[in-house]
């Protein structure tokens, strides 16, 4: 039996005094992928931000365990140092710090940095100030590049393919799939389009509506049902907990 890497227990969280996450229970096992579906504004990104311990995301009930230990009182950097990595949807621009500077902070292996930047078609961006004048697709590739160099054991991906053209989704999907397999990494992935599912094998899918996880099941079946009937059907679904 696989060991659990992340366990979320009865988690409720608020942002600006507004309760967003309601009694979430979710377990992600070692070397396994969970896909999180849900309409816009349902709280999916809030869940990822709460797992990372970002400023303004306050746990009001429940706990989060990483490799069996509670992380709810740890700072973001401690959670990252334990092995949780996140890809940002809208990362901040940072003047005077190049993508290369961050890369060399995260990895001491020149060959790895060169190979990965080549594969992700980022060579031309390495010397540029971080996220300055990056296109939507470039931001996604740069985020994936950094988080892979970081070598987390749990990868949190918030719509990794949104705003990326099909050719680049294929590049990113290939790189992501290789990384997850090679390093036996677990992942929680938010997706709307489902394109990323063509490249990775997810074990579990779940649906979040109004801050509640209402269903856990087979990812492709859930995605197919959402594609055909939308989220309205989820509310009446037989799998609903």
């Amino acid at each position, binding site marked *: 039996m696989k060991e659990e890497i992340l366990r979320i227990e009865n988690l409720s969280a608020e942002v600006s005094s507004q309760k967003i996450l309601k009694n979430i229970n979710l377990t992600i096992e070692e070397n396994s992928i969970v896909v999180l579906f849900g309409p816009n504004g349902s709280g999916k990104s809030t869940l990822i931000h709460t797992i990372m311990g970002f400023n303004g995301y306050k746990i009001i009930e429940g706990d989060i365990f990483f490799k069996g230990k509670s992380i709810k009182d740890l700072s973001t*950097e401690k959670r990252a140092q334990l092995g949780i990595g996140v890809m940002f949807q809208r990362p901040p621009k*940072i003047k*005077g*710090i190049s993508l290369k500077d961050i890369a060399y902070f*995260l990895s001491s292996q020149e060959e790895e940095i060169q190979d990965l930047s080549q594969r992700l078609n980022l060579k031309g961006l390495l010397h540029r100030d971080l996220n300055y004048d990056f296109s939507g697709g470039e931001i996604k590739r740069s985020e994936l590049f950094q988080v892979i160099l970081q070598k987390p054991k749990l990868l949190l991906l918030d719509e990794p393919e949104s705003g990326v053209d099909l050719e680049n989704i294929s590049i990113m999907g290939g790189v992501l799939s290789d990384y997850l397999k090679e390093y036996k990494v677990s992942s929680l992935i938010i997706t709307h389009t489902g394109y990323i599912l063509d490249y990775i094998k997810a074990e579990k899918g779940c649906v979040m509506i109004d801050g509640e996880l209402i269903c856990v099941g087979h990812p492709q079946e859930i995605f197919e049902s959402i594609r055909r009937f939308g989220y309205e059907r989820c509310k009446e679904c037989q799998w609903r907990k």
Partner: protein
Amino acid sequence: MPMEKMKFQEELIKVGFNSQEKERSASFLQEDDKVKLVRSIASDIEITSTQKALKKYSWLKKYYKKAFKEAGKGFPGDTYEGGYFIWVKENAQIFFPIQTCLFLKKNRFSQKVHNLVIVEEGAQVYLITGCGASPQSFESYHLGVSEFFIKKGAYLNFTMIHNWQNSTVVDPKSVAVVEEGAVFVSNYICLSPVKRVTMYPEALLVGEKAKARFTSLLFAHPDSFLDIGSKVVLKAFSTSAEVISRAISNKGEVIVRGHLRSESSQVKAHLECQGLMLSEKGRIWAVPQLETFYQDVDMSHEAAIGKISKEEIEYLCSRTLSREEAKSIIVRGFMNTDILFLPQVLKSEVERLTQEVIKSGL
């Protein structure tokens, strides 16, 4: 090497002075009031103390104090002991920089120097000046008066690095006269603690198409007071100027002044100041001024002051950096030497120096 000499050399390295004179075309070193080293390895460069030069060349009188007169300013102070005279001959293209250093060693010493730099027509030269004080030099004073004459079509790139002690008071005063088609670039770096620096260097663009660029990296530590300005008077047709500053207050006080004054038409001038407050204590005061007597000018300024964004820190923390590392990397990024117009030969050296000082200052 004796310990004291070694320590002295370390102090010199911090202001960009290379005691081995490696990759330098000429050197001048003054300690308190004593000139310790004068050497030029390029035949096109003459370097000596200003006093000796005045004795040697009677024609120098037409330059001596003339830049200040042309700027309509009174000449500051009266007695001077030393200072460098640099004369770069016509059309000389000097690849390696000239280095000078004015150093304070004695306790409570007042160093008053008068520097005179003449770059003849068509010549191109880089000058790096390091000014500093030894840790033993308590409550010392430095008055550095500099006059630069950049003749027709010439280019002078002047980089000044200050590394004083927290009890030192410093008054650099300079005027540059820039002739037709000539370029004067001034890079100023002051990142270590000092009691007070007050300076307002001025460039007079007297010939058509002359250019001046002033850049500065300023870091005000607790109890440091920096009042740093740059003024360019665009006196001739089609001249241009740029003044760019980055200022950080870490509980210290920094005033960043800039004054661009157009006295002719078709001039282009831009002023930019960005400030970063690292604490609730301290102060940054940006004072940009644009002035014109002509319609046909393109003059602009932008200034922005803020604090380190929480989002940037959080982002870097999620990449495993500690909060302190994140803050340090953001500050070092803000003080990026890319804003300076450094020659390639000095770029990596100055970058390393500034990064080390900022890192140790945080």
